């Protein structure tokens, strides 16, 4: 196989796998049963088991996560929001997959509601947007935060981590980031303008001995 054909075969392979998946969805087969050639049996069994578990977060918790997520990663002129990127769904899965997140997130959500109740007489999600931002501002800046809000800061650090990582590993987030790889291409070295910008250049030896492609 030459390079062009091998890449063509690869891309075709990817496409046909996607088609199989769609077809199976229409036949009401669960997604976990298809396109899992890259998983060993024990992983498939585990995923089926986790997906069969009841939801970890109740509706109120999920609503709070969604509001917080969209405050941390909002929709703006450049890209979509955390909820559009399905970050809340990711957080629901990841706390089941990594149970060490369960208590800090659940307990932190309750801390947030109590703090909100003490301040405004209602839960965080029922507060106005301005009230919500006011609360977030108290816990989003670790160095500025008051000592009595320390637990809120820890909780917000965790939510910032989970929302940010969930967002930037979604299709919307990867596009926002501008990551351009994960596709067949030919590496010909650092673009000339970038080399120039950094005052660097390839040596004669490198240009001679390294591979280049037309």
């Amino acid at each position: 196989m030459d390079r062009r054909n091998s890449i063509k075969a690869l891309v075709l392979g990817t496409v046909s796998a996607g088609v199989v998946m769609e077809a199976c969805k229409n036949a009401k087969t669960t997604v976990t049963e298809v396109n899992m050639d890259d998983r060993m049996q024990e992983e498939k069994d585990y995923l089926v088991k986790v997906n069969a578990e009841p939801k970890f977060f109740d509706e109120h918790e999920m609503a709070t996560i969604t509001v917080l997520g969209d405050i941390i990663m909002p929709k703006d002129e450049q890209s979509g929001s955390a909820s559009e990127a399905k970050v809340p769904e990711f957080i629901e899965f990841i706390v089941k997959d990594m149970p060490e997140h369960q208590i800090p997130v659940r307990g932190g959500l309750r801390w947030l509601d109590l703090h909100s109740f003490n301040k405004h007489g209602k839960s965080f999600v029922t507060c106005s947007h301005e009230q919500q931002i006011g609360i977030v501002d108290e816990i989003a800046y670790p160095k500025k935060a008051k000592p009595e809000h320390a637990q809120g800061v820890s909780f917000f650090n965790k939510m910032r981590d989970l929302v940010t990582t969930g967002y930037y590993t979604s299709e919307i987030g990867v596009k926002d980031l501008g990551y351009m790889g994960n596709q067949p291409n030919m590496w010909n070295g650092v673009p000339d303008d970038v080399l120039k910008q950094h005052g660097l250049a390839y040596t004669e030896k490198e240009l001679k001995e390294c591979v280049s492609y037309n």
Partner: protein
Amino acid sequence: MSDFQVKVAPKKYDAVIVGSGAGGGMAAYVLAKAGLKVCLLEAGPDYDPAKNSAQLKNPWDSPRRGASSKFRPFGEFDGCYWGWEIDGEPYTQTKGSDHFDWWRARMVGGRTNHWGRISLRFGPKDFKRKSIDGLGDDWPIGYEDVKPYYDKIDRLIGVYGTNEGLENDPDGIFLPPPKPRLHELMFKKAATGINIPVIPSRLSILTKKINDERGACFYCGQCNRSCKVYGDFSSSSVLVKPAVLTGNVDLITGAMAREVLTDREGKATGISYVNKNDKQEYQIQAKVVILGASTCETARLLLNSKSQKHPNGLANSSGVVGHYLHDSTGAALGGVIPNLMGRKRYNEDGVGGMHVYTPWWLDNKKLDFPRGYHIEYWGGMSQPSYGFGMGMQGLNGKFQVNGKTKEEGGYGSSLKEDVRFFYGASVGMGGRGEAVPRFENHCKIDPDVVDKYGIPVLKFDCKNSEYEIKQAKHMKETFREIMHEMGAVITWGDSDDASNNYGLSNPGNIIHEAGTVRMGNDKKTSALNAWGQAHDCNNLFCVDGSVFTSQADKNITWTILALSMRTSEYILDQMKKQNI
């Protein structure tokens, strides 16, 4: 248990091989191509990168976004089944020892499906360390014995690199290397400025096509997932597949070897194994038994193969089996380069690994530790996965973001700006050094514990010595200098000191373990002769990392492959001469 029985396969093979990784895969390839009838046993399931690789998947294709799990400690898309722990297959530690981290792959091709493809020949000095510094032992062979095999595997498998004429980092038959990435040019400039050489890396990745069975690299940077077009070396795709295609190999997957069978004279007659799928016991008979189960699994098999003739375990009249266990040393450090913040985007994936590295460049006679290390460099605009963007509050208050000073932490569009700004500015480096093999460092059979198949398990007793600790200290000092020279800000790995052995990895953690069934000329102090043949049993051979008399400041896979090919050709020769 009246229905318990052991099924003996009627076919008698020329050779039975345990393990399908670099060592076992190469033995199967050489013997099958020569026409021998081979039975290849693999404890894990079948695996073909063309079908089973997660190559080109996006992070959102994984529910855990590429995070690690016990099934894939190096991440969801990594090409290795299992790792530090396997359900139902425990191992134990001796109290007071350093924890030995034991990586085990269970799949056709073993760890070669995910390894770093760093393919370094050992140099002339690496086979004769005792003659140089008085520590450990010389190998019974020298570079000149192995060189023809390195040449053959360079051609057969393919490796890129450059001939630099270095004394202890021998030239090879190289494909052209890829050009350095931006951060690699920065590392090179900084390091060479303080007399630390940086040269093209040597990885078994096809920058050019070498035959019709394998495609060339298309630069997705995902060699650790294994390659669907076979553009890099995995034993599964490059050795086992063509071996099976000869029609001479019966590959049995799910076959967990229990012991090597011997006859009354003490000769090996085959392997007994439990089939993980049907839970039944089986025996395979063969004229020659070849172990490539991995350094520690091979030792475990031998120690579990006791008989009247071999009361101490097979090939173990010397008592060295399981001993001299040693891994590459490792220490690392990293940070961010302000000049790379807010950088222009382009596809920087490159090959699945570093494009440049630093081979050992100093003279240990002038240092307070006996053996060297090489340096691997990391960085670049790579695909985000779970963990990406975490800890932003530790960065965004420390550097101006697009000219603005910010309060650390935050949220909203401003946080998105921060993530974009710091993307691709992180770099790191790791040292991989040579440890001195010592008798005291060993694994043995735990008398109290069996795995779920009833096979007695290994108990480890390993400790890093002053040699390794001082080497790690030197690594850290070197890394700090390089980071300083390139104007980088260290963000992790800087606080290690004597209290934690300067960040030195646990033994086993670098996954280059070797030495448990070492070769030597003296049968009182070694288990194998210079051909990898047991002193005590002339139709038993080892072909994995267990045979190493000592490591080098190099990754060991290329030498496993070369030695396995050499042993396999010796087996063909000895069978022809009817010596075995």
